[in-house]
């Protein structure tokens, strides 16, 4: 459908006003909201993710596309049924305690939202309790942790330990990432997954949720 393709391409260009207008047009034309979301917005964000992964575009473009996506989703939200939106799964994300770096974590949130997941973003300097409480409250499938500093990485171990303590191991999966984080480290602390970049994080989440 031509309008949906236009939505995707305007989203790829980061044009939030155009995306808003086209989404309105599609809704007026009685295109189901879930279809607009899937074939317009998510399809566009998918291309953005691929281009970013291929180092063809950078953070600024991704952020503008994310803004365009959010503009579109805002208009669709009242029309989306409970079963339509974000039924792929729920992830709680945050930058661990003591760490204020969130660019990577924000990117992961954008990619996950863009792929149709429900994202609960706790921000930065997030305590293990906050991660696990949010996971319980939101019925999350995955907890995603980010760190940029080697000194704050140990906090990831605390979150994994707390998940176990609360008897949630297996029910809530854990995934870690960030510049100094490695697959070895993820294994060492008992995390269920490791994402080496934002796009890989989405793949891992898909695998973990199954």
């Amino acid at each position, binding site marked *: 459908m031509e309008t949906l393709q236009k939505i995707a391409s305007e989203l790829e260009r980061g044009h939030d006003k155009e995306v808003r207008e086209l989404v309105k047009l599609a809704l007026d034309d009685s295109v189901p909201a879930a279809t607009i979301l899937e074939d317009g917005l998510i399809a566009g964000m998918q291309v953005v993710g691929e281009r970013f992964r291929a*180092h063809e575009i*950078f*953070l600024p473009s991704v952020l503008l596309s994310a803004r365009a996506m959010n503009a579109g989703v805002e208009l669709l939200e009242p029309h989306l049924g409970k079963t339509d939106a974000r039924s792929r799964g729920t992830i709680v994300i945050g930058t661990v305690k*003591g*760490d204020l770096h969130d*660019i990577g974590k924000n990117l992961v949130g954008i990619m996950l939202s863009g792929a149709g997941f429900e994202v609960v973003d706790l921000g930065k300097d997030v305590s293990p309790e906050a991660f696990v409480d949010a996971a319980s409250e939101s019925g999350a499938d995955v907890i995603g942790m980010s760190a940029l500093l*080697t*000194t704050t990485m140990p906090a990831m171990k605390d979150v994994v330990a707390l998940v176990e303590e609360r008897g949630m191991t297996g029910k809530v999966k854990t995934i870690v990432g960030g510049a*100094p984080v490695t697959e070895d480290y993820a294994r060492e602390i008992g995390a269920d997954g490791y994402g080496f970049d934002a796009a890989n994080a989405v793949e891992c989440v898909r695998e973990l949720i199954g």
Partner: protein
Amino acid sequence: MGPFLERLKDGPVLVADGAMGSFLMKHGLEPGRAPESFNLERPEVLREVARLYLEAGAEVVQTNTFGGSALKLASYDLDDRTEEINSAAVMAVRETVGEGAYVSGSCGPCGRMLAPYGDAEPEEVRESFRRQIGAMVDAGVDVVCVETMTDLAEATLAIEAAREVSLDVPVMATMTFDATPQGFYTIMGVDVPSAARGLLAAGANVVGSNCGNGIEKMVSIAKEYRDCTDAPLIIQSNAGLPEMEGGEVVYRETPEFMAERALQLLEVGVQIIGGCCGTTPEHIRAIRAAVRPRPQADAAAA
């Protein structure tokens, strides 16, 4: 030490100092606390690190003000003490080095993204740097070092703020690049030629790169800079990338490894060679001995 820019033009290579953060952590800086808190609470640690780097052969010694812009300090509720924090840092270094080294005022990112990518407005970012750099210049820095930048717009605002504060204090500006299959780019998509162009246009006197890479990639970055500008260059390399080994952080590039490759930086025509994350006084001593040995001090290292 004579005027900085003249020294760069007429003199041999200058060696700058190394990492600060790891040193502070060894002296009790806890994760989650602002490193700049030491400027108020533990200035003796600042003096000690400056002394060690000076003895190792550094002639450009940086202040502990990487996160000292008002906006960055605000995330620790310390912005009302911006001037004090920056001033104390400059004084700690000056008291230690006297006229034996150039005191370089470190200015790192403000921690916020400029609109339309984030919610920071240009004027508040410029003002944030103005407060920081104003305090540094008042306290007597020899040069301002805008560093670890990834956004050209932010770097421009910092350089402009420095020029506004004083036209007499030279400005260095360095960006942090990632090695991608498409070449070196900052996370915001700035390549080396764009960085050179933009930073110099904004008024920087010296340009270059710090952080993000070990010395081998830095040699490549230096070459790219040299290919597009004759301006003085500064390179402050990591001692490799940090790895976790049994609960400890290790940086793999040894002083010898870095010193050997520092000679390549010399060949490219880099005027100032220093270290970033993971480097120690030993790294600086080795680099100094390699690029501009001191007959007495470096006899042991040779």
